């Protein structure tokens, strides 16, 4: 099927019990999403406008532009309801589930952003919703767990393994295998079996649809480069999609370099999440793609200071665009991302998600190679990352970071 493969990547490597659901979804995707049957896409766009806050602005970044002597534009997905691009996908899928007559929504979440977006979309569309989340992540992502529960969704703690995203995905697939008949699984990025990678990309492509128009209106030209951070790759594909055919526009997928690009085979740990830059072809979570794995093919534990990039795979379409030379896979390490976080906050008054900060870290390091006009996707806001950033910043003693001794002065807490 045309929407299921990207070169050799993609496919549907799932247990047989899920295949009918996948086929049903493929059919629904083609009818509603691709052919706007029953006005699905119209309703999706209208809800993204009224409930989600689209279009998001494309903002000229004055301080950064001056700093780099390059026109830098920010695509402000951080202003979307929920605080990240995640809602584009979550709302699209929950609405599709409604059109398909499903009665229940399940989703996995790691850092909690996708869980939050899905819970919001499900509340908005009045669908019961269960979010699977590793117990380790539950303990360290309290605010997002609160938000999910407050939106009325269940949080199902996953206690197997290390209790993080990988286990949560597996657990959600298990639920789905048992409940396929009435349940839709809202996957959180452009990963998983077909048609998820294409479908999630289409929902996220609102980003580049708007950005491409906005930049031409504001700058009078297409950009020389477009940057987006890449975890699973949904904000990335969403930001790139409508520029893919503009061959003069360079596309940079900025991955998490973590603390190092090297790998500890023995421990099964990659201290990064740079699947595009360093991963090998493999099969993970239903798709063939680039994967962080050991020589046996066991999936590595990935690492990044930003929880949302911390994933050992990546969307198959992105892997294909990298192999075909259309997308440049690049990465920056934790330190550079943290510095970029502070820089954007102080210079532009926009506190980015730590995921997003990676794209700005790359901008800082390579601005002179990017051309005259650059668009960077601000995939989310950083409110969720404040505690992490403070901790990680203090450990590193970064000079750019604001001093937090205010809390010592007033004796109000641990810092």
């Amino acid at each position, binding site marked *: 099927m045309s929407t299921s493969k990207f070169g050799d990547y993609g496919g549907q490597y799932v247990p047989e019990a899920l295949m009918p659901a996948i086929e049903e979804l493929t059919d629904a995707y083609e009818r509603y999403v691709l052919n706007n049957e029953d006005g699905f896409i119209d309703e999706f766009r209208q809800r993204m406008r009224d409930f989600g806050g689209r279009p998001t602005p494309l903002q000229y970044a004055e301080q950064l532009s001056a700093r780099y002597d390059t026109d830098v534009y920010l695509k402000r997905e951080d202003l979307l309801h929920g605080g990240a691009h995640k809602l584009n996908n979550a709302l699209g899928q929950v609405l599709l589930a409604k059109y398909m007559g499903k009665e229940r929504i399940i989703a996995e979440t790691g850092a909690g952003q996708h869980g939050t977006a899905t819970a919001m979309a499900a509340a908005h569309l009045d669908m019961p919703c269960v979010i699977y989340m590793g117990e380790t992540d539950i303990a360290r992502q309290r605010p997002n767990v609160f938000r999910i529960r407050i939106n009325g969704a269940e949080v199902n703690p996953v206690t197997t*393994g290390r209790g993080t995203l990988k286990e949560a995905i597996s657990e959600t697939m298990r639920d789905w295998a048992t409940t396929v008949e009435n349940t839709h699984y809202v996957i959180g990025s452009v990963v998983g079996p077909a048609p998820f990678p294409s479908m999630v990309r289409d929902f996220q492509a609102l980003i580049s649809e708007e950005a491409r128009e906005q930049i031409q209106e504001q700058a009078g030209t297409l950009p020389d480069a477009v940057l987006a951070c890449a975890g699973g790759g949904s904000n990335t594909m969403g930001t790139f999609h409508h520029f893919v055919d503009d061959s003069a526009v360079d596309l940079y997928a900025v991955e998490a370099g973590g603390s190092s690009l090297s790998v500890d085979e023995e421990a099964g740990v990659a201290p990064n999440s740079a699947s595009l830059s360093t991963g090998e072809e493999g099969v993970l979570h239903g798709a063939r793609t680039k994967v962080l794995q050991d020589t046996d093919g066991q999936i590595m534990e990935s690492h990044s200071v930003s929880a949302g990039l911390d994933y050992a795979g990546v969307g198959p379409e992105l892997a294909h665009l990298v192999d075909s030379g259309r997308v440049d896979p690049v990465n920056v390490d934790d330190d550079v991302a943290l510095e970029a976080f502070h820089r954007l906050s102080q210079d532009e008054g926009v506190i980015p998600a730590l995921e997003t900060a990676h794209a700005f870290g790359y901008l800082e390091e390579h601005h002179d190679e990017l051309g005259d006009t650059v668009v960077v996707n601000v995939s989310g806001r950083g409110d969720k990352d404040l505690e992490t950033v403070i901790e990680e910043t203090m450990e590193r003693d970064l000079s750019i970071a604001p001093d937090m001794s205010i809390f010592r002065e007033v004796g109000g807490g641990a810092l």
Partner: protein
Amino acid sequence: MSLEASFADEPAFVPYLAAGDPDYESSLAYVEALARGGADAIELGLPFSEPIAEGSTIQEAIVRALEAGMTVDRYFEFVADLDVDVPLVCMTYYNLIYQYGDEQGPRPFVRKAAEVGLSGFVVPDLPAEEAGPLRDACDEFGLDLVFIVAPTTEGERLERMREQVSGYVYVQARLGTTGARDEVSDYTERSLARIEDWDVPKAVGFGIKSGDHAERIVSAGADGIIVGSALVDIVAEGHENDDATEEVAQRLEDKARELKQGALRGAGDRPRVE
């Protein structure tokens, strides 16, 4: 002995264990105990880090085995070290098969599997649509490729499996993942009816716990039963309680016998097809 032959004379009992759970030596003893207990073939799990088709029982067995050092190479040694007389089926996920060896694709893995004496494969995340290369390699080295038919598998998909399946067909008795359940699922008879005219043996799995349960499944028309979680539970319990390996092995052997006897009773209840 070929896989299909295991089902020839009487309903087959096909147990599953994860190789290396909870450690290499005990695991050898456990698998051998199952053979003694009456196994006609054994599905031997090669642990993969993301076992998306397994319920929590088997998932945890896989975690134990990985933590105890199981790797692909050790798995092949394990198979070679095993002293059993029944066909062994490698149950694992496609990525491990795909990555093995220098050559792209599943061929090196299958060659090696043939070398160490494995008889076939069950690969739960490899749908019939993507199975071509593995099927070809199996043909080349004379191994079987088992497919899982779910309660929801129908039409064209069913056809594609029928074309590729060999050894036996794994009939999933209910929706969901592996895991022992109390109720017999309603789907068994319907699923069996759907593949009535296939000429491979039909083994039913997912959720079989007891001899009585096995009896009912076989009397419903299965040519064999596949039992995983109920056996893994015994391994897990023994591990938790620090029980001696021989004791746990004995329990497995007893359980195997109970299940095999149940299957045999079930066969008595119905006219044999041949």
